[in-house]
């Protein structure tokens, strides 16, 4: 059992949980994730380890409540426990040890960028982060990222930082030159747009993919993605890949496979709420 030690609301639909997982806290590396299974009957869902405190034996999970499973998770309160947390899974991020890295985070992807920036900073690389959200209240992890270098905040409505998309800021940063590698994590269209910006410039670009997963150990193949024309299992071969090689259209498409089910689950959960059984 993995007790929830603390809970913070980061944005209207993003919640941060500190969860007891001593072994994972000790050994997790940037880019790795865990599979969380709240209780019997729940889904197994992959979540990036956004941070860890080995001394306290806890890991940080940042969850965007989109479907029933994530909403059930963020409804948990400190003191309650998650039944299963398995990991750390996935390959650690390829981190540069010198030079200048540009980290681009969109929405909840900013939480995935955090451990990468942390690792780069620890390695002695220079880090510039570009993060964004719809408006001020949707911007997360700004202060945490400032510890590792310069942070540019973008909001769609200009209510905070500069107005526009993270891709606009990234274009400018790339135009200024001197960027050795780009790490981009966020919604599929954002990652694709960043990869298209860097392709003509030949700047190595690493993206973190979030396909549907079940086991997270290479056993089911549900997480398959195409990279460089080859099928790869994101949970064991990734989740990070060369953004210039990824078939983003396929990823977006496969992510939509269970849309009808999500609606059904949501409708059913609301029904239960209204009846007041929950």
């Amino acid at each position, binding site marked *: 059992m993995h007790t929830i030690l603390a809970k913070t609301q980061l944005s209207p639909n993003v919640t941060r949980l500190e969860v007891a997982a001593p*072994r*994972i806290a000790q*050994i997790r590396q940037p880019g790795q994730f865990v599979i969380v*299974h709240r209780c019997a*009957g*729940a*889904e*197994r869902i992959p979540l990036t380890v956004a941070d860890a405190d080995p001394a306290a034996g806890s890991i940080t999970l940042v969850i965007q409540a989109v479907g*029933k*499973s994530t909403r*059930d998770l963020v409804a948990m309160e400190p003191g309650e426990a998650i*039944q*299963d*947390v*398995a*990991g*750390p*899974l996935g390959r650690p991020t390829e981190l540069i040890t010198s030079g200048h890295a540009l980290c681009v985070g969109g929405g909840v992807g900013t939480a995935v960028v955090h451990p990468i920036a942390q690792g780069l900073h620890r390695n002695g690389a220079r880090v510039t982060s570009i993060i964004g959200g719809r408006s001020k209240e949707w911007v997360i992890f700004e202060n945490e990222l400032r510890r590792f270098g310069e942070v540019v905040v973008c909001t769609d409505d200009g209510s905070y930082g500069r107005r526009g998309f993270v891709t606009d800021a990234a274009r400018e940063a790339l135009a200024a030159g001197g960027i050795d590698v780009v790490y981009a994590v966020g919604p599929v269209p954002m990652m694709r747009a960043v990869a298209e910006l860097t392709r003509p410039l030949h700047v190595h670009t690493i993206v973190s993919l979030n396909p549907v997963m*079940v*086991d997270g*150990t*290479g*056993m*089911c*193949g*549900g997480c*398959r993605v*195409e990279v460089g024309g080859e*099928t790869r299992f994101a949970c*064991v071969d990734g989740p990070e890949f060369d953004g210039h090689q990824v078939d983003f259209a*396929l990823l977006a*498409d*496969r992510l*939509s*496979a*269970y849309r009808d*089910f999500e609606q*059904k*689950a949501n409708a*059913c959960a609301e029904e239960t709420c209204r009846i007041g059984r929950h």
Partner: protein
Amino acid sequence: MSAPISVKQRLQISRQAMPEQAADERNHNFGEVNLGFTEQLALLEADRCLRCRDPRCINGCPVAVNIPRFIDLLSAGDVAGAAHSLLGDNTLPAVTGRVCPQETQCEAECVRGAKGLPVAIGYLERFVADWARQHADQLPVAKPAPTGKKVAIVGSGPAGLTAAGDLARLGHDVTVFEALHKPGGVLLYGIPEFRLPKQIVDQEVERLKQAGVKIECNVIVGRTYTLPELRAQFDAVFIANGAGLPVFMNVPGENLKGVYSANEYLTRVNLMAAYEFPKADTPVLVGRRVAVVGGGNVAMDSVRTAKRMGAERAFIVYRRGKEELPARLEEVHHAESEGVEFELLTAPVEVLGNAQKWVTGLRCVRMALGEPDASGRRRPVPVAGSEFVIECDQVIVAIGTRANPLLTATCPDLKLNRHGNIEVDERGMTSVPGVFAGGDIVRGAATVILAMGDGKRAAQTIHEYLMPAMTKPVNGEGAAASLCAAVAGDRVHSL
């Protein structure tokens, strides 16, 4: 119990049929298909056994269950004795009685099969094992003296569970590490409820826990701990992590929505209970017309599951002929009677999809059997110009699994063969001293009973390795034999 009966009388009894759920009913539910012998049927069938002086059936069993002995005890009305005898030979008889390919093992050797039908050994095994599950209180748990030695087992499938049980019985401190959130391996996530109720797996695991086995779930060896880390903390390690990596067909369209590996499809339905969605949170796509590629047990389980999930039509697409289907005979019969359609001598060449990238069909080619290949089976070759399309909205790929490199990659010292399977010597030991391996990770996808046989042997050789003074190995063979005797002696003692 009854008056002795003559061989002639025994020969006159015909093989008793397994009571089962009606085909047109069961293909809509997940309840077990085979209902099990009644006591009366079991006793009648037991009387068919001729009590051969040189019982050949035992040679057919990979773990050498003393078949006539348990059948004889059953006939004598001593079901408890039969259960003791059986459980001493076979850690998971309620499982093997349901999933062993008896027709190629014990029952293939049975002399009664020469003229007529063999004794229904599997059904009798199941009957006795089910009695034992229901009367666990009548079966004493042996409390061996602790040896102080710690053994780690990687994987909780049949190989791992068998080794765990045997090692605990020998007094070792055993911890099983399992990657998933529940123990059982393929027995849990692969083989469906209608063939092997999950309650049975849970009960067997519970029995092992009571015997002192510790089980730690959510530990992925290779990620949570590396193999060298485990080796440093334990006196010996047994790797039984199965052959979990699904193989795909490598044809165009394989990543369309609606294409599943059998592992994913069965895991969603079995382990995650997707058939109860939305009561369970995990969904599974429901096909109206489902094509399952492959001809083994995994394919039969997938296609029969698809029927139960509501498929109007479900097809087996297999590149060889009916004779070559590697599945258990009973599964093929059950699939046929449940309305599964067989496209034999047929191989897929492309998965077809629509603009929204959903599966719409499977383009196939007919095959003819050519020259025998390395496995001795005739190699299927495509028939020119025979392409056709099976219209379907779901494709399940059940053409095999390979070794998962997750664990082996963290221990370069571990010698692998060219398929990525772990190499072991005749004792089941790997190239790393004190690290043993067995089951599908060594053999490639095989069977439950072969995995259990490996677990049983590994437990014996690990015991010899840990307690050289006690087991005094003279040479490999003799040591194992003397140890078998010791284990058997132990058992008799504990009864």
